[in-house]
């Protein structure tokens, strides 16, 4: 089969573009759930009590040390082994691969972001926390009003990188019968034996979404950190820098 750009644009691309919302839904839903779950994970990881920090450590290591594909398969195929067949058939959520993918991606994000957030919490300047204490805030208030907002800001660049990685990772949902962009491309490829049109088409679609998302997140980062940006975009260079390279 030859590569046929006309077929790709007229037949394949519309179907792939129709699947983009599902890919974006998977990305944002699991990003939001995962990032929210990351907060207790990071807090537990930093807890002085080993009862909290050890499970958090084990969770983070499991999520980061195993392929996402296994985590997805474990959830998707494993649940069917736990519940009897009639439960699996009657529950609408349990029949659809989408919810398994959402669950797997969310806990995976919780593990990755939990570790990032841990570093960011530790990087919050001590003086700010002391200032909060001096204002008479209790520990909870200090955490929610000072430490967490500050830590989120610190790890924002790393978190946006994670989101882009997550967007790319949602393509493996296609392996548990979710018809997002990759799943749709695979279906057309298997049905029509058109290898080039479908895969290159999917590549173009992913490239556009990822590129657009990277740009949007960069813009957002710049906006949120406006107060701490250097005044000039091109800081004056030192004379010594301009010599021989």
């Amino acid at each position, binding site marked *: 089969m030859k590569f046929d750009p006309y077929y790709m644009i007229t037949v394949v691309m519309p179907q792939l573009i129709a699947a983009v919302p599902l890919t974006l839904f998977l990305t944002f839903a699991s990003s939001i759930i995962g990032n929210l779950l990351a907060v207790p994970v990071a807090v537990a990881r930093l807890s002085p009590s080993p009862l909290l920090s050890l499970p958090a450590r084990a969770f983070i*290591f499991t999520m*980061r040390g195993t392929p996402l*594909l*296994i985590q997805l398969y*474990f959830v998707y*195929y*494993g649940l069917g082994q736990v519940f009897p067949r009639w439960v699996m058939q009657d529950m609408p959520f349990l029949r659809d691969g989408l919810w398994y993918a959402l669950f797997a991606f969310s806990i995976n994000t919780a593990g990755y972001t939990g570790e990032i957030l841990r570093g960011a919490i530790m990087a919050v300047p001590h003086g700010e926390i002391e200032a909060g204490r001096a204002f008479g805030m209790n520990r909870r208030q200090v955490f929610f009003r000072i430490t967490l907002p500050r830590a989120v800001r610190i790890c924002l660049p790393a978190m946006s990188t994670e989101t882009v990685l997550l967007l790319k990772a949602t393509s493996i949902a296609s392996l548990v019968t979710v018809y997002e962009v990759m799943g749709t491309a*695979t279906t057309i490829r298997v049905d029509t034996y058109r290898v*080039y049109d479908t895969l290159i088409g999917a590549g173009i679609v*992913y490239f556009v979404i990822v590129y657009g998302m990277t740009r949007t997140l960069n813009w957002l980062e710049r906006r949120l950190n406006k107060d701490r940006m250097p005044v000039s975009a091109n800081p004056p260079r030192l004379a010594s820098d301009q010599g021989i390279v």
Partner: protein
Amino acid sequence: MAADAHSLWASLAWGDSGYGDEFVKGIGTTLFISFSGYAIGASIGMLGAWAKLCHIKALNRTAEVYTTVVRSLPELLLIFLIFYAGTRALVSLLVMLGVAGQGFDINPFAAVITALGLIYGAYLTDVLRGGIQAVPKGQIEAAKAFGMHGSKRFVRIIFPQMIRYAIPGLGNQWLNITKDSAYVSVVAAVGEIMSVGRGAANTTHHPIFYFGATAGVFMALSGASMFLFSRLEKRANRGVRRV
């Protein structure tokens, strides 16, 4: 479930009655695929880093396009692209040129290793470029002042320091490539850990146990890699004063 827990553990036995030897062989295969892919990736990465930093505009741009495209596509899609479309294109090209016969086919092992190598080439390009850029300019100027030529300067000054700066990034990419080798199981069952685990789970209908075992193997692999790279990092930084 509790009743057959014993037989489940027994199924990890060595030999024909268990998956133990398959898993161990799988570790070897995963390491082989990852290492070969990593070696190809590192070679591409060195070339790419040089292309990004040299003074030839066309090369800068080519390397930039390569890393941008590869880094913004899902690994699974890239593996599909290279494994299905890439090999097919290559085969028809070879047949057209008369180099290969009609029935010629590309070894799936070679195809997946090439796929991983091309993907990781892009990631390693940026890791190595960062390492080169981290080398203090004054040292390069000093080397020039000593009359060292480009290649000598690279071998004696840039390369040893570049590696030191790049080790954390190199370690991360190594961890990623071992995990991404699991994607290989989707296109071809070449006997790496993920294919073994998947095959065992499908055959025995005990997905929790076998995917759990597979995850355990990967965790051991990741743990060992992390340990190794932290040792390497310590060793590479042994002459550096902590500030």
